[in-house]
């Protein structure tokens, strides 16, 4: 292998891109991808769009190096991303689509189905995604938009999905997942926090925050209201009008009481609220907790007894992608789920849907820390080389399955979302 690389570097001097072609051949040799003839693919450019948390340029650079065609990464936020999928899908080739956005996209001729036969790492994909089950065979709770609700297409067009029954066609391949919970400042809460109900506890009056986002914010509040025994839900991820009313009415009351210090919309806001001590308990994302900690401020992604709010991402191919480009997409898809990307995002606290592949690209110490829930054997670094955790620290929430085995509800867009948006605006404006 080294010999080969050297030979190719010389060629790389003659023509830009030649090195990449050679590397593609090279990586094909290591991982055993069905190698497409390098001369044809060198001009292929695969445009990948996703949210900033996963659409990371360093991943595209590595893919370009390994595969021999160019992968471009474009990061777009929130509704702008969804809008891009829906109205300009021809300007991108493949996309990170969250399970929730899948719900908007399916049936709108945005994505094509992916034949299961082309998916190399299907067997390594966690059963929570493929079957809606835990590894021990227990059925996972079915609240919110679960992976199996959107994963299996009825036919090659990919415009309709089954109710969870496995087929030979996927709408997209599972890539990234995690369970979200509340972040706390252990030095400032002054009491044990172990339930979502603590978000509404009078002890944290004026020191709590939630996301200003109707679809996710309301689920966090619903988790809290249910934990406090104030509201009972059939499905927190798909509330009835009456449940929405009860939730929003309670929220209005709680807001009036001065419980919330702030509502956040961006990652940075959530980090700053916590780091400055304006807020001591709030809904949060895993890398935001890490960002607070990296400033030397204690912050815990607190496991709670009611469970986590799960979310997931998938990689899909746009409708217009065909021929050689489609072959390149399949290569990229199998590279993407092959471990490099999974290891990369593992280092910021997310999980790969194919954990065993990610393991190949993690050091044993990293694997034990991020996935095993064991104390870090060495210092743990972020993908960008920043010190994340000192040796000896243990990840909040324990091992992979201690977290993902306890998903209470998935992120969602509800059937009554039209009504929810109206009521949410009432809450926000009150």
């Amino acid at each position, binding site marked *: 292998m080294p010999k080969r690389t050297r030979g190719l570097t010389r060629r790389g001097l003659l023509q830009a891109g030649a090195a990449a072609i050679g590397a593609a051949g090279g990586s094909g040799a290591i991982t055993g991808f069905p190698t497409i003839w390098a001369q044809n693919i060198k001009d292929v450019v695969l445009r990948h769009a996703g949210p900033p948390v996963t659409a990371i340029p360093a991943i595209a650079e590595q893919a370009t190096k390994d595969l021999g065609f160019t992968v471009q990464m474009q990061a777009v936020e929130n509704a702008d991303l969804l809008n891009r999928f829906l109205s300009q899908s021809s300007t991108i080739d493949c996309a990170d689509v969250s399970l929730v956005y899948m719900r908007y996209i399916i049936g709108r001729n945005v994505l094509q189905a992916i034949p299961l036969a082309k998916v190399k790492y299907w067997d390594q994909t966690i059963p929570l995604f493929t079957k809606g089950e835990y590894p021990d065979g227990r059925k996972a709770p079915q609240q919110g938009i679960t992976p199996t609700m959107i994963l299996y297409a009825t036919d090659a067009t990919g415009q309709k999905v089954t109710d969870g029954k496995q087929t030979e066609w996927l709408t997209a391949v599972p890539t990234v997942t995690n369970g979200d919970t509340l972040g706390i400042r252990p030095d400032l809460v002054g009491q044990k926090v172990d339930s979502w109900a603590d978000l509404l506890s009078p002890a944290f009056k004026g020191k709590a925050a939630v996301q200003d986002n109707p679809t996710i914010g309301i689920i966090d509040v619903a988790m809290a209201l249910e934990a406090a025994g104030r509201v009972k839900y059939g499905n927190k991820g798909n509330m009835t009008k009456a449940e929405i009313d009860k939730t929003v009415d309670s929220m209005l009351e709680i807001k009036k009481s001065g419980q919330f210090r702030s509502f956040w919309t961006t990652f940075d806001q959530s980090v700053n609220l916590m780091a*400055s001590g*304006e807020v001591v308990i709030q809904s949060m994302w895993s890398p935001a907790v890490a960002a607070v900690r990296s400033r030397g401020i204690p912050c815990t992604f607190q496991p709670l007894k009611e469970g986590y709010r799960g979310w997931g991402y998938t990689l899909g191919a746009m409708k217009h992608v065909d021929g050689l480009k489609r072959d390149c997409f399949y290569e990229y898809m199998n590279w993407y789920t092959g471990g490099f990307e999974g290891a990369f995002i593992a280092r910021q606290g997310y999980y790969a849907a194919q954990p065993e592949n990610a393991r190949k690209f993690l050091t044993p110490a990293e694997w034990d820390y991020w996935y095993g829930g064991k104390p870090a054997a060495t210092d743990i670094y972020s993908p960008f080389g920043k010190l994340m955790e000192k040796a000896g620290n243990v990840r909040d929430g324990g091992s992979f399955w201690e977290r993902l085995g306890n998903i209470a509800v998935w992120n969602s867009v509800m059937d009554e979302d*039209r009504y929810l948006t109206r009521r949410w605006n009432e809450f926000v404006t009150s």
Partner: protein
Amino acid sequence: MNVRQLVSPWSAGAGAAMPIERRRALPKLPNWAVSWLQVGPLAAILLVLFVLPTVLFLVVSFFDYDRVGIYPAFLLDNYAELLTTPATLRVYVSSLKFAAIVWALTLVIGFSVAHFLVFHVRSPILRTIFFLLCAIPFWTSGIIRTIAWIPFLGRNGAFNQILMATGITDRPLEFLLFSDFAVIVTYVHLFTLLMIGPIANSLAKIDPALIEAARDAGASRWQTLVGVIIPLSKTGIALGSILVFTQVMGDYFVVKTMSGGQSASIVSMLSTEIQAMQYPPAAANAMVLVVFVAVMVGFMMRVVDVRKELVK
């Protein structure tokens, strides 16, 4: 030789005069055509960048929608839902409240600063320097100037630390940040220059002889201000007011950031709808806002005929 060389440029000049002769020979454009040509470029820009999008909003605001898409229709539901939800009234009242308070504060501060700059600073160099001092903060983006207040006003922020260190309070003042107070402070900081500019401009146009005459006629400083200066600067006041008012009514970022999402603005309501991919109600919301602001500005224009004053 020398003379010829000196002359030649002149002869060239004479040659250059020829096209002018030819241009004069063109038939004179009728007045209406001249007016249209003058208005044309701006009209084209407004047509493409304002009228067309607004018409599009208007059309879409009557559409039906669900999670999957928007459907051409003529429904009044979007307007009915918008106008019947209590949130709408609340948010308009709250935006108007902000607009009124900010308008009053920026007017007093802006007028005072402008008055000082125009009438009290005698040296033109010093005046330029002071104007620059007012303007330099505006070289950075409004977003940065907004966010900069957060560490200053926060619970553990600079201001609270000063208060506690000097013993003025013994616990941090919570209302300083994520409150209406914080929103107003930021608005005043952001928008006072919008008042200073037009008012200083109209103050500078006042003939000093008028003020001298007022003084000679025995008017006190206050009488001069109220009887001469303010009436003569009302164009600037009106222009500044319109700028501040429209900025506050159309704001989204400041309210959201500085109130910590505790207060909402009209546009933040609209943004919630856009984030949920609900374009028809967002379009209806935008239409109502455009009409509302247009009516308010029209009202201000009635109070002061800005056009007439500007021509003077």
